């Protein structure tokens, strides 16, 4: 068990700097998820923590010890890779126990440590098979077992579920959550899948272009996105954005107009609202905005309507029982307490 701390960590390839001044402190037992689009630098940071990439500048501390120059094997970490990275020529058993065997552990000791790990991940029947004879999900289980048996201080997961199909992904996600609950090891998990991030994380580190965009619990990031990027990245279906201008207590684009939730100086603002916070209302309600229905997507429990109001188009989630014909005029109202206001230029959140 250990803390992980990045102090102004930098990474550059030649002249090209991909990570500049990355600072983050991860508590003992914490499950932190690095979330971000492809190429945002999240995997690079994970690989620097693992010791697979050199650190250009700054300090990396694991358990209070500076580990910048330590070999990956000496950092007390274990890693699960996206494509499993099993040793193809070894059986499942050999894959799991390889590190212990090379470290000179006794046969007895290895058997004693192997048993609970195999038990937890349900790998008994596969022990003598080769990785190529296993499905992707089973291979990733073996990779997790290989990481677990080392009882590392820090678990690193590099998009471990990305190569699996949707159903298996769900299964294994639940399994990883359960393992973390049992083992309580500090974990860093890299993904671009927000569902994985939301369900697994104690804390999400949302990254974009090598910087931390926002850091917080899944609830915090969902309910109070700090930037336009965070607001747009988190949530399915995505948040609606309206480019409006604040003037005289109203937010307007000339055609639609809503009440500002708090006094604002006159300036362009981007208003964000999730599709679920918009409701269909009857004509004549105060603040009702007329809109034309463009498209109707059936999602099972809900129906997602694409609407156009003046120059703005947006999505509204309604119960599946509501039927709206294409081209029909409807009236919507935006829940005032669920509006997110952002500065259009800087993208920063505006609060009262």
């Amino acid at each position, binding site marked *: 068990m250990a803390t992980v701390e990045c102090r102004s960590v930098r990474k550059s390839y030649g002249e090209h700097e991909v990570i500049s001044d990355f600072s983050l402190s991860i508590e003992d037992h914490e499950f932190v998820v690095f979330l971000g689009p492809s190429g945002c630098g999240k995997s690079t940071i994970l690989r620097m923590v693992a010791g697979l990439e050199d650190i250009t500048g700054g300090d990396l501390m694991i358990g209070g010890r500076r580990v910048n120059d330590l070999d990956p094997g000496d950092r007390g970490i274990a890693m699960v890779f996206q494509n499993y990275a099993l040793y193809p020529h070894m059986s499942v058993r050999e894959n799991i126990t390889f*590190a212990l065997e090379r470290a000179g552990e006794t046969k007895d000791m290895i058997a004693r440590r192997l048993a609970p790990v195999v038990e937890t991940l349900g790998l008994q029947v596969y022990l003598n098979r080769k990785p190529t004879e296993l499905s992707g999900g089973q291979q990733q289980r073996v990779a997790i077992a290989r990481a677990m048996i080392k009882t590392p201080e820090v678990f690193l997961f590099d998009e471990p579920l990305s190569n699996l199909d949707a159903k298996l992904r769900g299964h294994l996600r639940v399994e990883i959550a359960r393992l973390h609950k049992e083992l309580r090891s500090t974990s860093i998990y890299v993904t671009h899948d927000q569902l994985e991030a939301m369900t697994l994380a104690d804390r999400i580190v949302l990254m974009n272009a090598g910087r931390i965009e926002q850091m917080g619990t899944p609830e915090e990031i969902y309910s109070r996105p700090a930037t336009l990027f965070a607001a747009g990245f988190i949530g399915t279906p995505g948040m609606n954005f309206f480019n409006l201008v604040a003037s005289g207590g109203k937010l307007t684009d000339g055609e639609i107009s809503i009440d500002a939730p708090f006094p604002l100086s006159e300036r362009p603002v981007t208003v964000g609202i999730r599709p679920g916070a918009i409701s269909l209302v009857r004509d004549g309600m105060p603040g009702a905005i007329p809109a034309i229905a463009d498209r109707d997507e059936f999602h099972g429990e809900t129906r997602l309507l694409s609407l156009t109001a003046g120059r703005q188009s947006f999505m509204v989630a309604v119960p599946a029982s509501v039927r709206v014909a294409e081209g029909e005029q409807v009236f919507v109202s935006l829940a005032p307490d669920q509006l997110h206001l952002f500065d259009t230029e800087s993208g920063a959140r505006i609060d009262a």
Partner: protein
Amino acid sequence: MSMVPSRNWTNSQDRCDLKGSRRDRGETPLAPVISYLNLGQNVMNRGRSLPVVFLGPALVVLIVLALIPTIYAINISLQNRTLSAPDSDYVWFANYIALFSDARFLNALWVSLKWEVISVSLTMITGIGLGIAMFEAASPRWRNILCFLFIIPVLLPRVCAAFVWKFAVHPLYGSVTWPVRALTGQTPDVLASPNSALFTVAFVDVWQWGLFFAVIVLKLLESLPPQPIEAARIDRIKGWRVHRYITLPMLKLPLISLTLVKAIESLRSFDLVYVMTRGGPGISTETLDMYAYSQGFIEAGRISYASSMAVIMLVISILMFSTIWKRIGT
């Protein structure tokens, strides 16, 4: 309708047996289906004869160049033909029986075996060692430069390589001998002593093939997925152990293929030995093919005796390689 002209066409050509048999095949139960599918008979016939067209010339060449001489050699090996006499009789297995009491033949067998083991193992060790060294230490730029340099020796015809090194180690004029003499005052003649002669010839072989194999091994290593190597680093496997436990086992099959290729290649190193030592000093580097050659053409002209050696060599190598191949295949 479409069948009529093609049938006329085959009929008009039925002087030729092959074409006649085509017509026969055209009347298989599938014929109506095929014509329905608009596969003209010509197309189908062409499909059937295509393997013959492609394989035929190669098989003819192979029969002329390999099978006929082999049968001829077996035939000669059962006679007592010499270059000096025009006539000969069948002596059946007398040549073979004589071989096994010929100490020089047994020596040649032993030298061939030594040569095979030494040249193959040194080549593989050099190839794998240098390949790993380049993989670990060389930048991409240096890898390119080294690969280019390492391929040059194998491009030389072996006779050229043999002459280059024969001159290089020449006791009086050799470019390798000269600095040794300048430093130690002694004049080594590596090709004149039985032990060093075999190793010197093997060195030239390794210089050609070991360096080339190093390039292949490097490319094989580069083609491996990097993640298992990274996983091994996290598993506290460092330095050469990564290759001992991870990369080389992953490359087991291509490395075995390389070894077999080299083993077959080493069997054919007559030209190298011939140029560098002619089997000398004495008979210390006289391989089987070298001894057969000198029995047949240089010393005695005993063509039949030499042929029986060639046949034995053929049988031994077929047996050895097919058992090795089977062992690996399973």
